[in-house]
């Protein structure tokens, strides 16, 4: 059951990034919903799950919307793995850890994207982009991750507990 919830949340994340935040944003600043989601899932499910969910989600978004396939996958995979570092290491109510992790991952992803634009021949003023886009987007992604985490945690934790209880019962 929790796998269905994860799949639905990924589809919702893709919708937010590819449609809603693309159309509604303030001065081009918008949260990276998939990044926030990957970090939150990593924190809730663990490092390996976070890594593979991030990898698959990243490949999916790359194949659907991006010219460069693999770049988003690297970013989301590392975000899932980074979130997984904190799996069961902090109180489940802690939203600061996922928020800060998401902000840092988003910050790193924006640098990766900036590098790829430069390598493809695009030109931009780095410091202007840094202060007007990269930094604000990272902060907004962190805040969005806190919200996502608050929404996902009660649903997923209950479902994961049931899943493991059922599996343990089956083995006996």
């Amino acid at each position, binding site marked *: 059951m929790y796998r269905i919830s994860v799949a639905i949340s990924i*589809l919702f994340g*893709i*919708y937010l*990034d*590819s*449609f*809603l*935040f*693309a*159309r509604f944003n303030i*001065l*081009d*600043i*918008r949260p*990276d919903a*998939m990044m926030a989601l990957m970090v939150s899932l990593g924190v809730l499910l663990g*490092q*390996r799950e976070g*890594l593979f969910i991030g*990898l698959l989600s990243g490949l*999916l*978004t790359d*194949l*659907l*919307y*991006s*010219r*460069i*396939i*693999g*770049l*988003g*996958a*690297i970013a989301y*995979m*590392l975000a899932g*793995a980074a979130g997984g570092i904190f799996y069961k290491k902090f109180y489940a109510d802690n939203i600061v850890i996922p928020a800060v992790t998401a902000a840092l991952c988003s910050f790193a992803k*924006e640098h990766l*994207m*900036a590098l*790829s*634009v430069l*390598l*493809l*021949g*695009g*030109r*931009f*003023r780095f410091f*202007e*982009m840094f202060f*007007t*886009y990269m930094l604000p*987007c990272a902060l907004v992604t962190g805040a969005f991750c806190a919200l996502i985490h608050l929404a996902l945690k009660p649903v997923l934790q209950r479902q994961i507990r049931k899943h493991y209880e059922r599996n343990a019962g089956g083995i006996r």
Partner: protein
Amino acid sequence: MGKLFKNKFVILLLVIILILAALAFITTRNEAAATWAEDIVNTIAQPIQRFSVNASNSVIDFFEQVFKTTDADLENEQLRVRIAQYEIMEDELTNLRAENERLRELLNYTDTVEGYSFVTAPVIGRSQGIWFNEFSVGAGRNQGVAENMAVINGSGLVGMVTSVSANSCKVTGIIDSTSDVSVIVERTRDYGFVRGILEAGSSGDMMELYYLPTGNDLVPGDIIVTSGIDGIFPRGITVGSVVEVSRTSEDAEDRDALVQPAVDFLRLEEVMILTAAPAEEEAEG
């Protein structure tokens, strides 16, 4: 450091990163490299994408309609302005009809596009962030779309098809900072290039015009159209208009002017993909 590389998880992570980096490198060089995977993913995802985009657009339209009709005074004012505009337009209509033929020749736009066969398709998704201006369109190989085809809408040039799968394609907009379009200034007949400006904030989607010959007399309001010499975009399609002339030196790399695209990229919902040139159609016929 040695301990780190003995950790199986870290090794797995590094291997996957290397594979993905190689994939990213290959796909920037060769767009067709992952076509089979794109086919599968897009075929499965497209009905969901279309449904969500249509549903969202309907909801947005509904709310826009509601907010527009609640302010009756504002509506009355808008109607009064419209009536005044129609009266002026009626007087000008006769003159415009006479000018129409001349303008057609001058722009060479309508005729050019009319000669092409095209596929109309909805925009079904956009890439995350502002680094690349890319979007998915709901027409692909099965509808006759191929790479490097020009994409337009009623206002002007939108971009170019960069990747095609069975029933959808990816389009890179002309406001992308990595895209170059060969253009001509309609009034002065000077050739140049436009490319997108990567900037966040209030300036909106803008492009820069560069490589114009020295001594050009560009003025704000000049219309920029495609030159047709790149072999991708047909000649005479409106690209945008000059909003600011900013050339400061003789250096060819410097921007000559700031250009506002004719297309509103934020509200882009449907596009036309030019699938065949008139000559190609005749040859096929």
